[in-house]
């Protein structure tokens, strides 16, 4: 048993930590969120220069052969910095879909760009009715003379407005919720018939509704196996779950630190508010919730890395814990900051918002509790 990072992983952690602490301060982030693009292209280019965008890909694909542990290490730091650059959408979602679909043509066309940061991607995992069911796909792809014709609506697609490629699951066979008959398509930006309606998200990112109206695609727009995309989506979702949970743990750590710190400095009734036992116990609870979540994070990352047969149970346990503890830590952090906690000025409010929204992504606490219990 070993909970320590190897040398390369420790170096990776170090490089992210230094960057987040040194160059990703909250005011810069705030300015980037408020900019036209909603993030900083220069910052994202730096991620690529530092090699982070290459981490999860195999050496054969031009990557650094990183796995779940590396993903966890990076995402935790992104959580600490509340990073809004499209690493998650582009690398953890779209990049992973390309990896898992194992389609050489598509990889040749897109991967190099994703890895060197010159391109970004998006993966359209949800539809308005699908909630947390990956197989609930109503977007249809029908064969046409040239190849395929797609019609449908994809909901809240991260980074869709600026992505150079959007990966779209569509139903090529069967009924709405069948597990078989889903196929993944790669749509280059500007494909005729595809429109995006973009908007910022409450947690500082960018998303869009993607509407497909008789989108004509060539036969080779199919990514991987026809009708067999669900396995790919499931594999991607496993990594996405681990990634957002690691991000959540990074956020939790920050919220615990900041709240404890604030309680030592904020004085009321002649004392630091941290001197009040009623608040001390609340902060102890926050601290414990964070540690318990971190334990499940390490467990799930190791199981995913080892390809353990019970990895889905492990991820469900983790995501449930993240939802439950995240809610508590976020709400308490705000409450203990008093009025300051509900201001746009204070970073704590923004950590709270992101942590809240992570519960809603890829299955909330109830969803994963049910999955674990099943």
């Amino acid at each position, binding site marked *: 048993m070993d909970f320590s990072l190897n040398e390369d992983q420790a170096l990776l952690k170090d490089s992210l930590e230094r960057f987040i602490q040194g160059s990703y301060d909250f005011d810069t982030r705030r300015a980037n969120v408020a900019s036209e693009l909603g993030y900083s292209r220069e910052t994202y280019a730096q991620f690529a220069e530092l090699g982070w965008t290459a981490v999860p890909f195999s050496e054969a694909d031009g990557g650094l052969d990183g796995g779940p542990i590396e993903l966890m290490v990076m995402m935790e730091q992104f959580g600490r910095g509340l990073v809004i650059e499209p690493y998650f959408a582009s690398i953890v979602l779209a990049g992973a879909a390309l990896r898992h679909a194992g389609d050489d043509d598509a990889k040749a066309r897109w991967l190099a760009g994703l890895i060197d940061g010159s391109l970004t991607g998006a993966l359209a995992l949800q539809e*308005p*009715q699908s909630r947390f069911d990956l197989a609930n796909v109503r977007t249809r792809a029908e064969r046409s003379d040239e190849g395929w014709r797609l019609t449908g609506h994809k909901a*809240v697609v991260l980074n869709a407005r600026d992505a150079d490629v959007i990966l779209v699951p569509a139903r090529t066979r069967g009924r709405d919720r069948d597990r078989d008959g889903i196929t993944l398509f790669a749509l280059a930006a500007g494909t005729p018939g595809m429109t995006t309606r973009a908007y*910022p998200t*409450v947690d500082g990112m960018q998303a869009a509704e993607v509407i497909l109206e008789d989108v004509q695609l060539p036969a080779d727009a199919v990514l991987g196996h026809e009708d067999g995309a669900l396995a790919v989506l499931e594999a991607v979702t496993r990594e996405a779950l681990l990634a957002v949970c690691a991000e959540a743990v990074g956020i939790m750590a920050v919220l615990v630190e900041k709240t404890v710190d604030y309680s030592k400095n904020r004085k009321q009734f002649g004392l630091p508010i941290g001197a009040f036992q009623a608040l001390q116990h609340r902060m102890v609870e926050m601290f414990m919730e964070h540690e318990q979540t971190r334990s499940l994070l390490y467990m799930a990352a190791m199981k995913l890395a080892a390809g353990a047969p019970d990895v889905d149970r492990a991820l469900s346990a983790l995501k449930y814990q993240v939802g439950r503890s995240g809610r508590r830590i976020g709400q308490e952090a705000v*409450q203990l900051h*008093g*009025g300051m906690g509900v*201001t746009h000025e204070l970073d704590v409010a923004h950590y709270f918002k992101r942590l809240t929204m992570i519960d809603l992504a890829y299955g909330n606490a109830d969803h994963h509790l049910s999955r674990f219990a099943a």
Partner: protein
Amino acid sequence: MDLNFSDADLAFREEVREFLRNEYPADIREKMDRGIRLARDDFMRWQQTLHARGWAAPNWPVEHGGTGWSATQKYIFTTELALANTPTIMPFGLSMVGPVIYTYGNEEQKARFLPDILASRAWWCQGYSEPGAGSDLASLKTRAERDGDHYVINGTKTWTTLGQFADWIFLLARTSTDVSRKQEGISFILADMRTPGISLRPIITIDGEHEVNEVHFENVRVPVENLVGEEGRGWTYGKVLLQHERAGIAAVARSKYRLDTLKRLAAEAPPGGTPLMDDPVFRRKVAAVEIELLALEYTDLRTLAAVATGGAPGPESSILKIKGTEVQQAIDELYVEAAGCYAFAFTPELFASPDIPDATRIGPPWAADTAPHYFNGRKVSIYGGTNEIQKNIIAKAVLGL
């Protein structure tokens, strides 16, 4: 024990309902129902509508313009207003400064201020909190120094809700520092917001809205006749005001309305989806909040009954703020969950005006506002005395600890 309304009460309820059907301005109703931000004028016009009927201040004594209603009638009135989804009545004038003025003000002040408060001609804001004085309000530092016929006020107030709309501010300021307890030497002063030396800095809340402000006082000269009651007794008056604030703080009727609405919305689903209300786990969660609300409703009614029979509100009344805000926040969370992925969309501009059609919103028309609303709603356990401070009060005053 009897749960039924009398015939007279039922007739009164019908009267209120008819008033709401006929007099609740359609444009304001539309804004409320579609979740569109209200402007200053909307709040004022609604309160003026109530005033036109003589119903602006049910809690005031009749001689100052109150309604003389029984506790049951007040309860019916509040409930019907909430069920019709009417705007919140701004508390600063009608529930806060008004009662202080009619209780402690002199005749001249009553004549000068009460009619404008009652008729919602003037917008008031509350200047209590300071950067260094939140829960420990008595440590406030804003000074009012006597200079001839004026007080000269210096200091900073903060969290001033909708101060940008206000014509007047009532504030607690220190008129003497030569005191044995910090609660002494504080005075209750009224200031015209246009007085030179008063400036506002907006504070943007977590949902991106301009709801609160910092209010700076720099050598602000306020005539001494704007002192309410005796100099140095402001703390006592301020506490009286907080008791008035407690009336209706449980917000039971509004929470009921919101929970019922939620159940209706969550029973719908887009084509190919399953309504969330069909999910037994979600149903149980809704039911748990509903039960908590039911308990709160009856706790509220017990308080009301105690007051109606001439008694003081019992210990149960201390529960109202804590449980009331917890229920409001739990309902906020259910809305976010019901919105699902569409809770992510941050599009306040689409909720800014009735001219923007609902069809332009992202997802179901109600969904994209749920997360900002939840984030903002964290304030209810913070303002009006944090829930921790409320618990300290219960521990001390009720449990004798």
